[in-house]
């Protein structure tokens, strides 16, 4: 039995292959191995690009009310505007906004709300969770009771109540979403930190008399991040969906700067009237974004899961 493929390994050489394999490269290689996840990533990139570049790509600025011509409202897809300057490829809504533009701008709001709320919640939650785990004792008990209380309440209710109190507005939605999410991250961060804290490399760092802060941020934090990143990706999707839901219920963003959720809510009225495009297209866009993010998150979970780590 001959092994043609097997090549000799120099004695003492590290197991793995070419040059320096950074965790990042390893991660990318793992990531790209799954086609579904790549597809998800492409979806996310397309959606994000459409959102980010909306001011340059969108045929119309749907937030500029002076530009809206009421006589162009509720045009089916493919109609030309009454002044003949542009074609509404996806139709217009009840306010004569070009659906395509409105969706791109709406996606901006949705993504912004999702991303910003998650980033802030992640930051808050991580600090709280790590602090609780690292210091333990009363600090831990207090912080975790707060988290428990927050988590004993379904997100949508907290957000509903908060928004009812705060009123409408993108910023208010952000506050509500952050308030809803930080606790997840705090708990996850604490759980991860408790596991990591017991690992011997932390003990080694303490043995080397490294300053606490350094241990916390340089040793603990980076190793607690993977599960948090997984949660964060999925939470972005959650946040976007939650914002859409809140807007749908009439408690989210203001009507003049509709997010995708608000667009769908607007379209809901038109559904029975046969003006399907007003609810359908933003819904599809939202679904695309969420599916993309979830696909990516799903796969991230697989490859960042320490159980699956090789």
């Amino acid at each position, binding site marked *: 039995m001959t092994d043609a493929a097997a090549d000799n390994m120099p004695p003492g050489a590290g197991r793995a292959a070419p040059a320096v394999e950074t965790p990042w490269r390893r991660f990318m290689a793992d990531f790209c191995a799954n086609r579904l996840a790549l597809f998800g990533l492409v979806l996310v990139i397309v959606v994000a690009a459409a959102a980010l570049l909306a001011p340059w790509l969108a045929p119309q600025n749907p937030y500029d*009310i*002076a530009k*809206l*011509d*009421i*006589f162009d*409202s*509720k045009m089916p897809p493919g109609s030309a505007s009454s002044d003949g300057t542009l074609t509404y490829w996806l139709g217009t809504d*009840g*306010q*004569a906004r070009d659906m395509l533009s409105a969706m791109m701008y709406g996606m901006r709001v949705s993504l912004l709300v999702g991303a910003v709320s998650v980033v802030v919640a992640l930051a808050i939650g991580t600090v709280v969770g790590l602090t609780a785990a690292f210091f333990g004792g009363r600090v831990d008990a207090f912080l975790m009771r707060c988290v428990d209380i927050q988590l004993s309440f379904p997100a949508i209710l907290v957000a509903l109540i908060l928004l*009812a109190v705060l*009123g*409408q507005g993108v910023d208010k939605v952000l506050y509500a979403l952050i308030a809803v999410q930080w606790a997840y991250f705090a708990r996850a961060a604490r759980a991860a930190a408790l596991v990591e804290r017991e690992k011997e490399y932390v003990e080694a760092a303490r043995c080397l008399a490294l300053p606490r802060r350094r241990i916390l941020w340089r040793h603990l934090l980076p190793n607690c991040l993977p599960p948090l990143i997984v949660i964060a990706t999925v939470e972005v999707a959650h946040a976007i969906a939650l914002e859409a839901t809140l807007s749908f219920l*009439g*408690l989210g963003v*203001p*009507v*003049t700067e509709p997010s995708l959720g608000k667009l769908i809510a607007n379209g*809901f*009225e*038109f*559904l*029975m*009237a*046969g*003006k399907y495009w007003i609810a359908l297209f933003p819904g599809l866009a939202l679904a695309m974004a969420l599916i993309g993010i979830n696909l990516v998150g799903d796969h991230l979970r697989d490859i960042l899961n320490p159980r699956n780590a090789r």
Partner: protein
Amino acid sequence: AQELKVGLSTEPSSLDPQYHNLSPNNQIALHLFEALVAQDPAQNLQPALAVSWKAIDDTTWEFKLREGVTFHDGSPFTAEDVVFTIDRAAKVPNAPSPFTQFTKQIVGIDVVDPMTVRLRTAAPAPLLPVDMTGIRIMSKKAASGPAPEGKTTEQLNRGEGLVGTGPFKFVEWSRGNQLVLERNDAYWGPKPAWKKVIFRPLPNAATRVAGLLSGDVDFIENPPTVDLPKLASNERVTLARALSNRVIYIHLDQFAEPTPGIPDTNGKNPLKDKNVRHALSLALDRTAIVQRIMEGFAVPAADLLPSPMFGTRKDTPVEKVDVARAKKLLADAGYPNGFSITLGTPNGRYINDAKVAETIAALWTRAGVKTQIEASAPPVFFKNRDEHKYSAYLAGWGATTGEMSDPLRALVATPNRERGMGGTNKGRYSNPAVDAKLVEAMRTVDDEKRRTLLQEASKLAMDDYGILPLHFEVSVWAMKKGLTYTGRADQYTLAYLVAPAQ
């Protein structure tokens, strides 16, 4: 025709006919109870439990009651029931919107004989018969109880003591789910066509329409305007419509200086200038709003009440949109570059309110007044409005009494709490001439004189652009083919008026 299923946009908050003065409650109460005086679809007064009424002197009204009417429980209807009911209105605790507003002028009730009552008032009360349309007579026998008010609201909600003379009897109510009524076969008037009526709350407009299309319900109120073109062309569906007494208007802050929401005029309030108000009115393309946003189910307004109603004028042309002139007026007023303004609007209180506001914003912006809208949930909007946080806001007013004094008093009279004037005049428009005519009218029992006074008062206010009427809502009902309904100005959905088509 056995059963009629009706989809309501708003469920009654209570079945107590004297708890909450609110359309959804009143329209249900009208099935079970009757008032002394009724209103026809155009809100003209009609005899009901009273066959006739007349003013005996300036402060006394006499009502002759209908003979041979029995309550659902078989007991006869008499003057005692009227006394009991009018008394009870003031005793219902925690009433969020009490019925005393209809009875507060009454200082005494005299039972002349079992079929005659006299209501005495402190001051001349020309509108007392109108007020009496809001007081639905309960059975003294059935609704008495240990509590001061007799049967409590809670008991009535359960159906205890819920005994009237109306065309339907109560069967069951499961809040949020359905209210079931059955025909009162002993009803004195025309018998309803339906043995049983089921009201289902379907607050979501789209679901309501879906319910109708899927046959879940036979009849719905307030189908969303967007669906109307499609429903109108659907041969399985019939529409009924009626011009309502509700005007949608824009109020402009004509008091505060500086006024919130206009940041760029160095503290000056441009809205105090009639030219500016005129310009804003000229910029409004009311026809476009009615056509595109309201799908044609509204009527452009030039006054606060639609024309044939009491106190309205015949010759009130709707302001034609004229952007050029608006710009010129603005320039004349010293704002050649316009200014910025925030327009407040509730979101979900009136038909398409926020959408209309958005359109207005676009229209004004084109005329040079850069407009932002601030749409809020109704409670927030009303709070802000009451705290004078808007320099301009969109709202609506339904004249339940169906005559002109009602909107004038509420919307354009100089605010005065004690006299109950200008309660909803949050733009704080004040015109002594209007006030004078109005006060005069309200003291006048003679209908013709009063009508003229009211016409004059409203003309003064309209010509001054003290308030900008937009349109009158058209109420719409949709039903499956084979039913008919006469639309009502008071927007009530009354199952006993639904009839199978011949």
